[in-house]
């Protein structure tokens, strides 16, 4: 119990320090009634926020699985003994890591029309393709994370799987993947966290995700005469990104716990 009390005290102290810092930095008083009146956020603004949050979640759910899928296979093919697999994925990874994701987004939006899934309207479809491009960008980073993980599994572990009669896919699934994931998960969590924030680049091609929604609303603010709404607005947007991030990193942490091996805490391999 004293531990919980200590923790509560820590958190309260941190919140107070943070509030004081914000007040000092932004030079407005939290005890000012006008500031709190800003909470009378127009209903349409709030609606825009929820729409933005939903879109960010949606893009996250496109980008992370895309990244994992291609990252896994590129990472795997880079350690392949067959050069016709390892070479092209090496080139792709180098290319995708070397180009700013913003440029990829713009290219995909304007020139990716051939890849628009049927049934989507051209505008939403082009944004979908742009999100897919961000997925490929993070896939390149994830490929390197997977490759490092695969290469950390000792040769003897693979031979033991082969000696039992496992196929190369079974060796991957039963031996290499579970062992390499212990090493790969923390950097993967890092990469997820990066790419969630990278979805904000989609605002550049007109997506109304959190950042896009913020932009859209903030152009209306000067007309309203409530300049202090801007502070609330961007705080809310930042909190939105934080929430999505936090949910994903917690999930990764939970997976890490499940892959922990007794007797090997803190040990490599």
């Amino acid at each position, binding site marked *: 119990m004293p531990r919980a009390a200590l923790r509560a005290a820590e958190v309260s102290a941190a919140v107070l320090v943070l509030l004081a810092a914000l007040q000092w930095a932004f030079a407005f008083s939290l005890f000012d009634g006008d500031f709190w009146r800003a909470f009378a956020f127009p209903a349409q603004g709030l609606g825009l926020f929820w729409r933005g949050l939903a879109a960010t979640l949606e893009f996250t759910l496109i980008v992370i699985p895309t990244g994992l899928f291609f990252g896994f296979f590129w990472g795997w093919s880079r350690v392949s003994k067959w050069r016709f697999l390892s070479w092209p994925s090496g080139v792709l990874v180098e290319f995708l890591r070397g180009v700013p994701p913003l440029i990829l987004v713009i290219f995909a939006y304007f020139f990716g029309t051939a890849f628009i899934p049927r049934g989507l309207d051209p505008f939403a479809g082009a944004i979908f393709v742009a999100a897919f491009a961000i997925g490929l960008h993070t896939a390149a980073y994830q490929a390197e994370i997977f490759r490092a993980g695969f290469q950390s599994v*000792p040769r*003897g*572990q693979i*031979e*033991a*799987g*082969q*000696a*039992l*009669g*496992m*196929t190369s896919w*079974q060796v991957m699934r*039963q*031996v290499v993947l*579970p*062992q390499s994931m*212990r090493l790969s998960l923390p950097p993967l969590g890092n990469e997820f966290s990066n790419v969630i924030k990278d979805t904000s680049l989609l605002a550049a091609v007109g997506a109304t995700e959190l950042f896009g929604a913020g932009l859209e609303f903030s152009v209306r603010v000067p007309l309203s005469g409530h300049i202090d709404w801007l502070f609330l607005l961007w705080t809310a947007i930042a909190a939105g990104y934080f929430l999505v991030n936090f949910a994903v990193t917690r999930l990764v942490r939970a997976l890490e716990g499940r*892959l922990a*091996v*007794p*007797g*090997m805490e803190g*040990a490599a*391999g």
Partner: protein
Amino acid sequence: MIRVEGLHKWFGETHVLRGVDLEVAKGEVVVLLGPSGAGKSTLLRCINLLVEPDEGSVFLDGVRVNDRKIRPEWVRAQVGMVFQSFNLFTHLTALRNVTVGLTKVKKVGASEAERRGRALLDRVGLGDKLDAYPAQLSGGQQQRVSIARALAMEPKAVLFDEPTSALDPEYTREVLEVMTSLARDGMTMVVVSHEMAFARTVASRIVFMAEGEILEEGAPAAFFEAPKHKRTQAFVKTILE
């Protein structure tokens, strides 16, 4: 059961196996002796195709297995292997190490696999370590689990690649006891080892290799007491000193 004919293997420029012929009958325990670099481990690995032979043939029950039409997995599922460094799957418990081949390769049901896994771990004296992970076991215990893992596949033969070289004398003894009882039960075994006492008492035949060739083979008594080849005489002399 296992027949090797005219086997050659090159690693780059090095000619590791220079025309090896070997026949192992059912129930036989063949111990491969020889100086390091003789090609003993490579020969063993050619039998279960962990190393692909460059020339020559490996037969398992009359079927030529180093053939494009034969899947290496099919061969390996029938021939067990025990490694010098155990190579237990570090992320699985002792029991799961033993059962993973059954459930994933042989597609045996989970409860049946567990029943057999428990029985095998009992047999190697580790019935109380089912849920331990490799990192929680001693070297000798790990090697016994790995023998149980190889046996779980009900192999036609088991290959042992220096199974006690990484162990303290005390652990070596417990592993050799398990191997001896396995030999008594009629398991076909090909063993690369430097354990002379085991070779003398358990082997049905000693095969002596040097520089990629088999120089001499014979019953243990004849091999140790009256070696014919000059290299063998020198080898026996050094180990008896």
